[in-house]
């Protein structure tokens, strides 16, 4: 199935050059793919995986390993950030 992976702020560096200007790319993943599996596959450092949203909904750290993704989901990840 296909999902959209979005990496922001310093995590943008983990995207291929072609995806940098949108911070997103389409990914082909297994039907039983979890949030945790994508994070592992992309070798995102745990300390930089802070805010994880699926379709805008926050996924707590303890649920990421088991949270299944669905066709068309948008998985967005930020390192620790703040502003205001």
């Amino acid at each position: 199935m296909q999902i959209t992976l979005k990496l922001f702020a310093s995590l943008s560096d983990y995207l291929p050059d072609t995806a940098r200007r949108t911070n997103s790319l389409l990914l082909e993943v297994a039907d039983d793919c979890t949030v945790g599996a994508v994070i592992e596959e992309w070798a995102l450092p745990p300390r930089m995986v802070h805010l994880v949203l699926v379709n805008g909904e926050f996924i707590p750290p303890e649920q990421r390993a088991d949270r299944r993704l669905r066709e068309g989901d948008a998985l967005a990840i930020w390192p620790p950030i703040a502003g205001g």
Partner: protein
Amino acid sequence: MALARKLLRVNLTKGTCVEEPVNQEWVKQYLGQRGLATKYLTSEIDPKVDALSPENKLIFTVGPLTGTMAATGGRYSVVTKGPLTNAIACGNSGGYFGNELRSAGWDMVIFEGKSAKPVYLLIENEKAQLLPADEFWGKSVWETEGGLKKKHQDPQIRVSCIGRAGENQVLFAGIVNDLHRAAGRSGVGAVMGSKNLKALAVRGTNGVSNIADPKAFMAAVKAGKKVLADNPVTGQGLPKFGTQVLMNVINEMGASPTRNHQDVQFEGARKISGEAMHEKRESDGKTHLVTNQACFGCTIACGRISRIDENHFSVSTKPEYWGASGGLEYEAAWAFGNANGVDDLEALQYCNLLCNEEGFDPISFGATVGAVMELYELGVITKEEIGFEAPFGSAEALCKLAEMTARGEGFGKLLGQGSKRLCEKYGRPELSMTVKGQEFPAYDGRALQGMGLAYATSNRGACHLRGYMVSPEVLGIPIKMDPQATEGKPAMLKAFQDATAVVDSSGLCVFTTFAWNLNDIQPQIQAACEGDWSMETLLQMGERIWNMERDFNLAAGITCKDDTLPPRLLNEPCKTGPQAGMVAQLGKMLPEYYELRGWSVDGVPTAETRTRLGL
């Protein structure tokens, strides 16, 4: 006490500058800056006074850590009654002006009355004098700052001044120092303009003394700086991306008010985000962002310095805007962009430059344009009245409206009254996205329930800096809270409001609290100041300040009926995103909030609460 124990009272009507001792009993109760200046203001003016009359006062004030070696210890505040809200107004700014005032040896400058002619205040350490400002009246912030440094042949003079917006009494005019740092909200600049006061020019070479326990202070400051450096937000995230890093996350969460709060997600957000500011432009191959910048003593350095595209329509014939200058910060980018459906980063930066140059609040300006564009699309305001077409998404209209507001020209005069008065004039008050007359910043009170409560109860009208519930509801600081939940929000908000009042009274920047909690701040205050500044003392002081501000507003005629949100937020659900279907559930939170505050069901502090807080 760390402060200098003296204030300068400037009577603009009489033209006098008189030194006074600072009331040390009040210092024990209010510490400095926001707390102490608000105590002076509320003790000296009638709360019902016209904010733009000579009877209002305007106080510039520093905190005990301003000008010290404490990280971010460069803040000052401007406290007055605000013309936009008719409530207490307190603008807080960084840059390098606050430490200069502190180094000149003044804890506070109280302006009263009104000068017959334009003047500015020159402070050179102990010496203070009012001087004619005829040559600077009618000039911008940038011209005034440069002119004052040239006139006094001292490039190290620090200037805090108004531009033409303040002179024209734009109701959301700010006071700008160091070219692009501002006491920006609630119209403090309009009060300054109403007094014919153009600027404060300060040179302080005395440095800071009176640190109660220098050895303990150095140890506490060192420990605090390590926490800031080690924290990924204050040590890495904010320096690199600034506040603008929020643009995408707030939008993804469906919490980004768009097109005057008709929507909660903006399709153009990515194009105006912090990430976009790092990219090379297709037009000239340069990045928008040039560098980050720090205020005095700051080890975070979140400020943005950018260079606008010289080929952009807004500045292609105006080389004076081509240099690197301040912006964009998140709130301004949102207000110019999302609030109006404009995704042109360069147009946003142009508007930001105008706000800095002429001294007006980008949040209130941008949000008021949002109301104008909705009224235009509804056919309530015509092209003839504005002078051009102004649909959502028009970068050209946005830029023209910024120019007209800055100069007080045509439709810009009405726009400069803010969205509440503008929408009332056109018979559509419900389209004003304001609380107590002040425009919302960049978070939707339907999507983030705690922010909705924060806006409704803020003492200076809709504001994110009185209780930043975005921290727990989005960022997970100090804990992650469900944005849709109402449970626990009143208690968390009260804690944030009281703690923020402490930080705003200390001379520190509230951004430290992304890494610090009061346990990191308390040792710095305790070491700097004489007396008891335990956690318990500080927390009670924060609560005292909040209630003092509330009392002033109540006496000014603002009641519990004003602790509310526009009908759009209460009745029109979020249309898209993860918060779709949500409205602001204020009724579920407000009674509990009043109870936690020790207020009556009408939102009035009870006699017991007043006694407990020493009010």
